[in-house]
């Protein structure tokens, strides 16, 4: 039995995985081969030392921390679950749609007002002439405050 084939046999012998015949052949080889016998002893001793390695205890509250982390994890997973949160937000979305629909209806029942109409009403007088007050806009000696007051106080019944 050549020594280089003995490595797997040493492991199997340690684990008791050799047949009776193979174990006998193995033992006969060990009696003649110092190197293999030393390797076998080393394997046995190191395995024994490692298997006796003292365990450390987990810190108190380890399980509690795992469960707390898991709850956080589940919370995050819940956020990522679009079905869950879209279902939860469905009533809010429905309410928003209803409000938007009502607003749309209220706009439709009132007379539509275009910006251009407002400007026309503001600038042009009833007889088609430009309001004399509008001409103030082109007068250089009129103060800004005066113009602002004119615009703000002009009513729809009596423009300027």
């Amino acid at each position: 039995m050549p020594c280089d084939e003995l490595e797997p046999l040493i492991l199997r012998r340690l684990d008791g995985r050799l047949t009776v015949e193979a174990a006998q052949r193995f033992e006969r080889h060990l009696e003649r081969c110092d190197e293999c016998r030393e390797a076998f002893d080393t394997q046995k001793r190191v395995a024994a030392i490692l298997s006796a390695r003292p365990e450390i205890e987990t810190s108190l509250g380890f399980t509690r921390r795992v469960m707390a982390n898991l709850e956080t994890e589940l919370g995050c997973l819940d956020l990522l679950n679009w079905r869950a949160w879209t279902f939860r937000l469905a009533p809010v979305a429905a309410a928003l749609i209803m409000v938007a629909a009502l607003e749309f209806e209220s706009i439709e029942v009132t007379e539509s007002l275009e910006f251009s109409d407002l400007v026309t009403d503001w600038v042009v007088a009833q007889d088609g002439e430009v309001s004399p007050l509008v001409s103030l806009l082109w007068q250089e000696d009129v103060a800004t405050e005066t113009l602002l007051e004119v615009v703000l106080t002009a009513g729809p019944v009596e423009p300027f």
Partner: protein
Amino acid sequence: MLNADRLIAISAPRLRAVQTGRAVSDTSGRCVDPDLKLVNEAIAGSLEAFEALVRRYQTRVVNYAASILRDAGEAEDVAQETFIRMYRSLKRFRGESLFKTWLYTIATNTARTALDRRGRRERFGGQSLDDEAQSLGADSIPSGGPDVETTLMTRDAIDRALATLSCDLRAAVILRDVEGLDYKEIAKVTGAPIGTVESRIFRARQLLRKVLQPLRGVHEGTR
């Protein structure tokens, strides 16, 4: 999916096997995973079953991670992450291997990721080897026994010896000699062929021989 017919009631004589996560055989001689009932319940959404699995394996996972990382605090972090990853992946567990084997696979990958992270941190942060090689904290060792000091020294010496090995050799020999997995299970956990696993374990023990030499007396004296 998991085979429901593989479920068996765990009898009292099998208690030790269940506690250690070792496979047991049913009346027909089939190998049955002692964790399968809890796993199935956890998959069905039982947090109590998940918690029971955590309690059953927390010490082993923390110790395994500590062997790989040589840092008790980091080992607990890795163990925490391992269990969270386990929960995320539970529905993908098909029962083709023991739950314990599957859990060690997750722990191994998580520990390797932590080692890579630490490596990057040290490369860029300039942490010294002495800092890295901090021994396991004294508060992590069970106290109160008459031989606490010996326990502390033994464990520290073993961990220092293990730290001299490459990650692959270390994982293989720890899974075999400390955690008690068989070669087939180790092959699954590490993703290496059985022949490679055997070779790694053999080489690891040969390399550890000189480093562990001082412990021979202690070990033999305690037996």
